[in-house]
């Protein structure tokens, strides 16, 4: 038997009586893994994290973390979890070290223990050099790292990271990924949400794809890619995309996927190179001018498109559904 550490069952939550943020969603996973919750803005990722971290009582459903019922025993659950939300929730006017000591003290550590723990954690996230500087002077990436540090001060069994690398530069992102991987190597279980397919691909052992408050697919990155059916052909063109779709319908095993923004049409290629040749032939016959055509392994973008019919960047509804906090 696997050791289930997070279990959410049939969670439903509605905001303002109309917007269904979570629509009968169930998620569970075992100790020691990174579970990636992947979905566009407004899919319900943050809302699910808020339920699991005791910040939000759902309308219905049950959830437990490390064996503690988060809905009926939130205080007990808080001993087991760490949370790093979308904003770096650290105080600019305190130093990095002071921020962490404060959090340690709120975990009921003595002053001495809190100082020791702060120094440990600072070393761990490579902030020792900046420890005694006010956080106001930190870069965005450093603030995120400090926020992550604050979330592990209490030795959580499960760590929840809500879009940990949104809005930071690529180099800092790599640094954060490294730290996140080290945390898991030390036995912390992690749930992270992301809109970046690459991030889920790189970090997560298992990925849950969430859209409109529902879990629409789950598996390893490879399993999800297999669902698309092997390789795909991507065609870039300035010609009318609808015509391209019509032309390719005979070749494609399933409905071609259109990305108007990037001006591409993507189709599954079950026979790989043979499919590619066939596609090129029909396009040429139809007189369509092609900028670029490529046969490639499917990315999680393709997975998402295949599963939902829309790209990850565009939410199905214009309104954000994550919480009621103004941003």
């Amino acid at each position, binding site marked *: 038997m696997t050791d289930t550490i997070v279990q959410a069952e049939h969670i439903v939550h509605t905001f303002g009586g109309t917007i269904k943020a979570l629509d009968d969603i169930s998620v569970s996973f075992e100790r020691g893994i990174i579970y990636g919750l992947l979905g566009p803005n407004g899919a319900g990722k943050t809302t699910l994290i*808020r339920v699991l971290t005791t910040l939000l009582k759902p309308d219905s459903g049950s959830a437990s973390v490390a064996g503690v019922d988060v809905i009926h025993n939130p205080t007990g659950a808080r001993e087991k979890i760490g949370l790093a939300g*979308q904003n*770096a*929730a650290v105080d600019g006017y305190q130093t990095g070290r002071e921020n962490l000591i404060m959090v340690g003290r709120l975990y009921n550590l003595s002053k001495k223990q809190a100082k020791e723990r702060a120094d440990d954690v600072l070393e761990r996230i490579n902030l020792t050099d900046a420890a005694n500087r006010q956080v106001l002077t930190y870069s965005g990436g450093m603030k995120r790292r400090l926020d992550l540090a604050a979330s592990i001060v209490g030795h959580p069994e499960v760590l929840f990271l809500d879009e940990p690398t949104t809005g930071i530069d690529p180099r800092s992102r790599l640094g954060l990924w490294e730290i996140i991987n080290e945390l898991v190597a030390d036995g912390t279980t992690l749930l992270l949400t992301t809109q970046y397919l690459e991030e889920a691909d790189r970090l997560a052992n298992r990925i849950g794809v969430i859209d409109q408050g529902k879990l629409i697919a789950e598996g390893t990155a490879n399993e999800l890619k297999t669902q698309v059916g092997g390789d795909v052909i991507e065609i870039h063109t300035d010609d009318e995309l609808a015509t391209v779709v019509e032309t390719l319908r005979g070749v494609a095993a399933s409905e071609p996927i259109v990305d108007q923004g990037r001006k591409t049409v993507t189709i599954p290629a079950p026979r790989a190179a043979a499919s590619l040749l066939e596609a090129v032939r029909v396009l040429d016959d139809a007189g369509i001018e092609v900028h670029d055509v490529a046969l490639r392994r499917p990315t999680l973008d393709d997975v998402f498109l295949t599963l939902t019919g829309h790209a990850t960047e565009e939410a199905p509804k214009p309104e954000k559904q994550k919480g*009621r*906090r*103004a941003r």
Partner: protein
Amino acid sequence: MTTLSQTATHIGIITRRNVLRNIRLPQLLLFSTVQPVMFLLLFNYVFGGSIAQAIPPVFGSYINFLLPGIIIQNVVFGATATSIGLTEDLQGGVIDRFRSLPMARSAVLAGRTFADIWRSGFVITLMTAVAYLIGFRPLNGFFSLVLAVALALGFGYSMSWVMAWIGLKVKTPEAAQSAGFLPVFPLTFASSVFVPTSSMPSWLAAFAENQPVSVLANTARALILGDAYIQSDPSLVASGATTGSLVLLSLAWIVGIVVVAAPLAVRSYRKTAE
């Protein structure tokens, strides 16, 4: 479960955090202290000449009448900082962090309101010092002055709970600022803070004489200036007020406001944070 001593520790930690913010962000300290002093000077020198005609001569100069009132006005204005600070924490995700920790639930609000007492205490001390330089004298002695300041801080504390409630209702710092000033302006201006209420139209005077800001301002004056103040105000004479009865009435307002506003704020805190 958090024990009582843990709760006290948590409140202390959060209070310290909030006080630290005032100390470490110089522009914040500057504006929260310069503005009240500016008010004091403006009222004294711009309106003082005209208003002095309307106040009984027992006080000497207008500054003696003004300071006890403006201390009360200041703690009410200062209370809006509670709602602004709280909404900033709400937006910045700090409240989420606190709520995900196994800490005392009450510490966030208690730590915020306590921290604002410290700031008000600092500002009142500064204002009193400036007032002294331009002629203010506590006619009834130093001890009575300290007692008046303590009452003012208690009143500021009770108003902090009202502002905490408003802030949690409106949720953003910008809205908190505007919403906070909505009750603050009529309460501080339609009062005996700057002028004797006898000069107001009777319907307004009826409100001004009985609302808490006037009660506190009158009490502060009775303490700082002595019984002569009560004798000088026909409405106070008519109600048979004494310094003692005014102090009791002030305490009743302070306790009453906390008893009503604190549970409202706590309830909003639980809901809003979700």
